[in-house]
């Protein structure tokens, strides 16, 4: 499908109309003086045409760049003329992505020298996720989790810093984080006190439900920073509150579960699901830290952080429909279930750390750091369910007690200005204890001791050559999970060669091997990234890069039942991600510039369990932008951007798409 050009006329008209006042200005270099401020800035507006072929939701998930008029970028900076403004010496306002793009940001700053700094930030990200699982291989539907959403996360903050004296500052901060929007998810209709027969029904039938989200977190803090005689103290005190509420409903009625390959589920229809889930958590915030010199050679640093999360949670749910009355699913009956549960949780956190740096010689420093963190989760919940005439009630209480000691000892050598060597060891001891109704659970309670030697080097023998390298090895006495390695050995080396000032190449190589002999778990990471940058002159420059990142892991898995064999089946996961990158900039004449930048991602490898075909395989993902812009004298910059991208999966082709985008933008400085 070709991009239709007819809307371009209306677009250009719109752009020119918006920019008309700016075009009337004679001199863009001279700042505007308004309200005692010398104001400068720029505005970029434009229109984007988007043409997508194939599976549009995947494009929306990865890019979300739709057609329409946009305020792509706006910046305004003001500097007070000498002595003409009592309230501020300067301010700035920047915005981008307004008008429908998935990422919008805005920042307002103002400052008065030696008095205050104010920053107000806002950014939001739209998330769209819609996995097309109707086209998976093997005729199986519902293989993916069917958790789709169209949500927006908004992050806002206000930070005010007041300089009371040269040594004393006060800060006031307000942060807000929200997430709203539509969420489609699946729920298995299990409940407290359900029978084994009901369990087989619940496991076989996840139902698709609509569950709009509403979450918000607010945080208010005030702080003090004090400096005296080489010592710096920082303290922040505040309060944080989190609330969320999800109200779920069945997507249709009567509704079949997503397990449509099982004929038994055809009769197990749900008529209605009504579900309300809410949670509140609040915590005080207390953070203290300091640094200072005890003697000219001995520096101390430390801190203490305290939080105490606590709050209630509630679940009210009812559902009715038809469910099996035997585990085989050969007989069905109507049901109506209601659930009402309440919970309370608390979690105090303490983190204390103390460190010292001793500068034994000009070329030799010793660093010693210790940290202890502890959190205790104390929770209880009451459950109640009613299925027909059968009422079930119960409660639970449990505790997590986790304390972790971390000690680091490091020596830093700088024998010459071009050589830095760090070597040290980290020791970690973590005590994890889980108590269920006061009784320790041996599976979840463990003491984990880890030794972790590290060495790194930075060497720059000449301006032409820079080498950075590090190597480390962790050894866990006990592994907490099956993929926590007993030993993990890795290293990285980065070499940069700059034979001439205008050209340099850099290569990064990473190797890491992990093993857990108890379960025959192995993983290996091999990564190499190469980049070359060339800047011939101010008019010609280029960049190219290639990286190859491979992961191989293998493990054994067992199932409790099912078709034989079901023990010690090999899991193999192998990813090889290759990324090619290129960028070219040309400015053939003074006001004209041409840019091209692009990536090509190629992922190969499979994840499979022995005896089963892999569900995902090779994937190709190229995307590129070519742009031309021209600076018209006294009028601004006209930019044309052409963008192309494709997403091609070989085994799950239902997600594939191709997209063409054209953006016409105008930038005017003032």
């Amino acid at each position, binding site marked *: 499908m070709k991009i239709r050009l007819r809307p371009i006329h209306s677009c250009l008209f719109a752009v020119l109309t918006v920019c008309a006042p700016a075009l009337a200005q004679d001199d863009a270099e001279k700042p505007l003086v308004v309200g005692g401020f010398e104001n400068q800035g720029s505005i970029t507006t434009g229109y984007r045409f988007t043409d997508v072929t194939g599976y549009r939701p995947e494009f929306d998930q990865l890019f979300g760049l739709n057609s329409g008029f946009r305020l792509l970028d706006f910046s305004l900076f003001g500097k007070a003329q000498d002595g003409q403004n009592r309230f501020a010496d300067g301010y700035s306002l920047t915005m981008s992505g307004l008008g429908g*793009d998935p990422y919008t940001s805005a920042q307002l700053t103002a400052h008065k020298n030696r008095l205050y700094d104010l920053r107000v930030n806002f950014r939001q990200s739209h998330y769209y996720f819609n996995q097309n699982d109707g086209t998976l291989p093997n005729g199986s539907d519902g293989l993916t989790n069917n958790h789709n959403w169209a949500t927006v996360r908004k992050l806002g903050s206000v930070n005010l810093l007041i300089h009371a004296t040269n040594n004393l500052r006060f800060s006031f901060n307000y942060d807000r984080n929200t997430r709203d929007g539509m969420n489609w998810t699946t729920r298995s209709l299990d409940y407290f006190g359900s029978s084994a027969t009901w369990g087989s029904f619940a496991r076989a039938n996840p139902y698709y439900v609509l569950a709009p989200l509403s979450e918000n977190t607010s945080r208010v803090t005030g702080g003090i920073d004090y400096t005296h005689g080489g010592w710096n103290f920082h303290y922040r005190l505040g309060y944080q509150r989190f609330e969320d509420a999800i109200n779920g409903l069945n997507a249709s009625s009567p509704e079949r579960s997503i397990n449509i390959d099982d004929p038994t589920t055809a009769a197990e229809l749900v008529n209605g699901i009504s579900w309300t889930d809410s949670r509140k958590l609040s915590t005080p915030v207390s953070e203290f830290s300091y640094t200072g010199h005890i003697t000219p050679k001995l520096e101390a640093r430390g801190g203490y952080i305290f939080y105490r999360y606590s709050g209630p949670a509630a679940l009210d749910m009812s559902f009715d429909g038809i469910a099996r009355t035997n585990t085989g699913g050969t007989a069905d009956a109507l049901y109506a279930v209601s659930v009402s549960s309440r919970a309370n949780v608390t979690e105090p956190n303490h983190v204390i750390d103390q460190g010292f740096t001793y500068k034994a010689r000009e070329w030799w420093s010793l660093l010693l750091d210790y940290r202890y963190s502890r959190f205790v989760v104390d929770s209880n919940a009451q459950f109640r369910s009613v299925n027909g005439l059968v009422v079930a009630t119960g409660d639970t209480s449990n505790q997590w007690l986790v304390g972790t000691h971390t000690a680091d000892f490091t020596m830093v050598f700088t024998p010459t200005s071009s050589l830095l060597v760090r070597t040290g060891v980290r020791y970690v001891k973590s005590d*994890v204890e889980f108590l269920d109704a006061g009784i320790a659970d041996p*599976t979840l309670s463990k003491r984990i001791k880890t030794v972790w030697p590290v060495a790194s080097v930075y060497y720059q023998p000449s301006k032409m050559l820079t080498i950075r390298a590090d190597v480390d090895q962790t050894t866990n006495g006990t592994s907490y999970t099956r993929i926590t390695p007993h030993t993990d050995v890795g290293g990285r080396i980065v070499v940069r060669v700059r034979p001439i000032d205008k050209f340099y190449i850099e290569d990064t190589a990473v190797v890491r091997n992990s093993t857990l002999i108890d379960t025959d778990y192995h993983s290996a990471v091999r990564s190499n990234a190469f980049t070359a940058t060339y800047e011939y002159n101010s008019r010609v420059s280029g960049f190219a890069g290639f990286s190859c990142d491979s992961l191989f892991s293998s493990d054994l898995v067992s199932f409790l039942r099912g078709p034989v064999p079901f023990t010690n089946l090999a899991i193999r996961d192998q990813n090889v991600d290759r990324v090619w990158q290129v960028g070219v900039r040309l400015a053939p004449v003074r006001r004209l510039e041409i*840019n091209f930048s692009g990536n090509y991602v190629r992922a190969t490898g499979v994840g499979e369990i022995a005896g089963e075909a892999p569900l995902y395989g090779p994937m190709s993902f190229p995307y590129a932008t070519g742009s031309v812009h021209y600076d018209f004298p006294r009028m601004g910059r006209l930019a044309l951007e052409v963008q192309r991208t494709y997403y091609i999966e070989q085994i799950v082709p239902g997600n594939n798409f191709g997209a063409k985008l054209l953006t016409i933008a105008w930038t005017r400085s003032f």
Partner: protein
Amino acid sequence: MDCHSTHLVEAARNPKRVDLSIAQSAFFSVPQLPEENRWLHNSLLKKPQPELCFGCHGNIQAEFALPTHHRVPEGAMKCTDCHNTHGSSNLASLRQNGSETCTNCHTEKRGPFVFEHAAVKVEGCTACHTPHGSVNRKLLARREERLLCLQCHVNPFAANVPHSRLSFQTRGDCTRCHATIHGSNFDANFVQ
């Protein structure tokens, strides 16, 4: 290491810098502040983030080029949102200890919960997610979600999988039913 410039030398040398190395920034029209103002707004950095960081961390730059990634190259986030570049006592120079860095934004994933997923509580988010970028959905460490779960959920070290091999439960993603996998207040199996 030399990230800062105390004078406006860089700005004067290259007033209209074009970021060639990050294709996403061109694709998403990352705002290009005038160099003089950009320089002052970003702690006197010689180059803007993430270009400055990618100058030394080429392999990380490649991870951000993968289809699913945190929106750093697009300008919606900065490296310093998560990392303290001057160093910290946390792994990977994170600004906060362990998963607290993640739950600073993903507040809904943070407990405490009545029923904690032990791997999340003890080992943190990176047990399952690769934070910079991934070919896989939701930044998961494995292409198929069930392979990620099955790596741990077999004895020893974790609960055995109670489902049948090659059944509906084990052929698809586990979170179809275990939807509250980060933690639940009402179901020990993370179903509600």
